[in-house]
């Protein structure tokens, strides 16, 4: 069933709150990544407030869906979404990256209940998600209701390990596995197609026998249609290439690769960032182009 207008509004409001928590945490931490967390806020919001099965009071509930964050550096969006979903108090976001914080600079599953893996070094998350999907199949065959989601960056597709995992996922026909790629076209040193071209990205995944979809990563109806379709596909894993705008929500920072790996630090940057996320009025500027 398609998302109702009310649900879309609710998701937009949640996403705005999550963006605000991300930016406030990054400013307080004085280090961390800005572009990726902001551009993935809508997808995380959709997953935690519509798609995923989980119980924040029982993070190790065995029948929960699994969400593997492969590009660990965008963890502020995972933390913020988890906080707003009830895993921990939102105020704890201000401990991000500080000594003793459960919110490590890159996620460590033993520090914070609810995290499925520890990540940071790029390119290995999909392998772990593939292992989870195979483990789920060993236990439940094709009848499992558990979904394994893996969130990846486009930059980490430079790593051979990502493609090793893609090959295995296709070979094993892991229909319980859905990958969402943050196709924001940037990485630390510049634009992905300058650093190491990935296009034609769709063809690459199709070649490994994946079901491939392309979506606007800021449009909740697009996200919902793609995730629903991914779960309906039989005998193939699915990959959703989500086109996103780096630093989405702070117009002055959007699309600039310089914001990949730094937070707002100067008084001007902080003012620009806070003004943007605190005045969204509960709505992002989502392009409704359908």
């Amino acid at each position, binding site marked *: 069933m398609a998302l109702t207008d009310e649900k879309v509004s609710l998701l937009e409001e949640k996403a705005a709150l999550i963006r605000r928590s991300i930016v406030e945490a990054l400013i307080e931490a004085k280090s961390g990544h800005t572009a990726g967390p902001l551009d993935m806020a809508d997808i995380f919001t959709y997953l935690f407030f519509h798609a995923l099965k989980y119980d924040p009071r029982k993070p190790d509930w065995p029948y929960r869906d*699994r969400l*593997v964050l492969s590009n660990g550096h965008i963890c502020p969006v995972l933390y913020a979404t988890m906080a707003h979903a009830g895993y921990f108090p939102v105020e704890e976001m201000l401990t991000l990256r500080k000594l003793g914080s459960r919110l490590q600079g890159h996620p*460590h*599953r*033993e520090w914070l209940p609810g995290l*499925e*893996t*520890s*990540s*940071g*070094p790029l*390119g*290995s998350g999909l*392998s*772990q*998600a*593939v*292992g*989870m*999907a*195979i*483990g*789920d199949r*060993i*236990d439940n065959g094709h009848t499992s209701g558990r979904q394994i989601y893996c969130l990846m960056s486009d930059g980490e597709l430079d790593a*051979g*390990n990502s493609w*090793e*995992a893609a*090959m*295995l996922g296709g070979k*094993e026909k892991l229909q319980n596995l859905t990958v969402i790629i943050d196709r924001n076209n940037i990485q630390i040193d510049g634009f992905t197609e300058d650093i190491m071209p990935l296009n034609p990205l769709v063809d690459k995944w199709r070649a490994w026998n994946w079901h491939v979809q392309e979506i606007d990563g800021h449009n909740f109806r697009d996200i919902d249609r793609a995730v629903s379709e991914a779960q309906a596909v039989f005998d193939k894993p699915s990959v959703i290439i989500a086109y996103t705008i780096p630093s989405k929500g702070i117009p002055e920072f959007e699309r600039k690769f310089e914001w990949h790996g730094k937070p707002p630090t100067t008084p001007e940057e902080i003012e620009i960032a806070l003004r943007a996320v605190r005045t969204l009025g509960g709505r992002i500027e989502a392009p409704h182009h359908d």
Partner: protein
Amino acid sequence: MLNPDLKLNPKIFDTDVEQQPIRAGFGEGLLQAAESDTRVVGLCADLTESTHMLAFKKQFPDRFVEIGVAEQNLAAVASGLAAMGKIPFLSSYAVFSPGRNWEQIRTTVAYNNQPVKIAGSHAGVSVGPDGGSHQALEDLAIMRVLPRMVVIAPCDAIEARKATLAAAKNDQPTYIRLAREKTPIITTEATPFAIGQAAVFFHSTGDFKLLTDKIDVAIVATGSLMHESLLAANALHQAGKKVAVLNLPTIKPLDEGLLLLLARQAGALVTVEEHQAAGGMGSAVAEYLTAHFPVPIEFVGVKDRFGQSGTPAELIKLYNLDAASIQAAALRAALRKK
């Protein structure tokens, strides 16, 4: 004399002592572990037969994952399986795993604290004709430096089977080092084995508890060179030296108590391993004893070189890992005592 309590193979010093590759014990242990625990799964990177995972694959095809030539994926997929409650055993050659996939092992297994069991076969120069590219001489160093990682180098096929069974139950990331070539069977089914426990296999005066008698020197050996070490000790004993041999299958965690007693009693040690002298078992022993009871130590191992093609016996001799070299090192260590 051999330690009677350990029920070692009485034919150890016979020329016709039975021989088996250490890796074969891993295969038997894996099958046995899988029979008694449905959580045990196996992963291999296109080396199923030579790492002795084939019997497991045939018996439990639904619990076996063929990864192909992709060792980074091998380690990280195993981590994902462990996250779903499985006990994954992965096997390959040690140069590839943990060689090629060290970072995946560090992050997705050790840092992530998933109880993945890594079997690294074809360790040491005794791989033979395949040459230096395939002879892992660095694996103990790169694995023992990882927090949480248990590191075991069994001395024969029987100990390898027991180590595999123990690893299936220890709930920790674990590395098991295996060798390709047949080596003499030293232990028996009745020989005790526990992760973290060393044992005195040979002692000139019979003081196997290391409580009273002073001796001239002690040999601490791990893995495939145990038989050469016992031959060296026997020759030294025949020549009138008082000598002991400690089997140290677990390099991490070290059996510190027994090492301390041994160092006190012998006052000089020689460590023996088919590995770089730098960073391996000898280094682990030295790190501990330097801090707690410093004694002269000679290190029998490969001295900052790569391997090469040859027969296993030729290479063991060429790299000064044979009984004669161990004997000479033991005498040097004894001479350095104050």
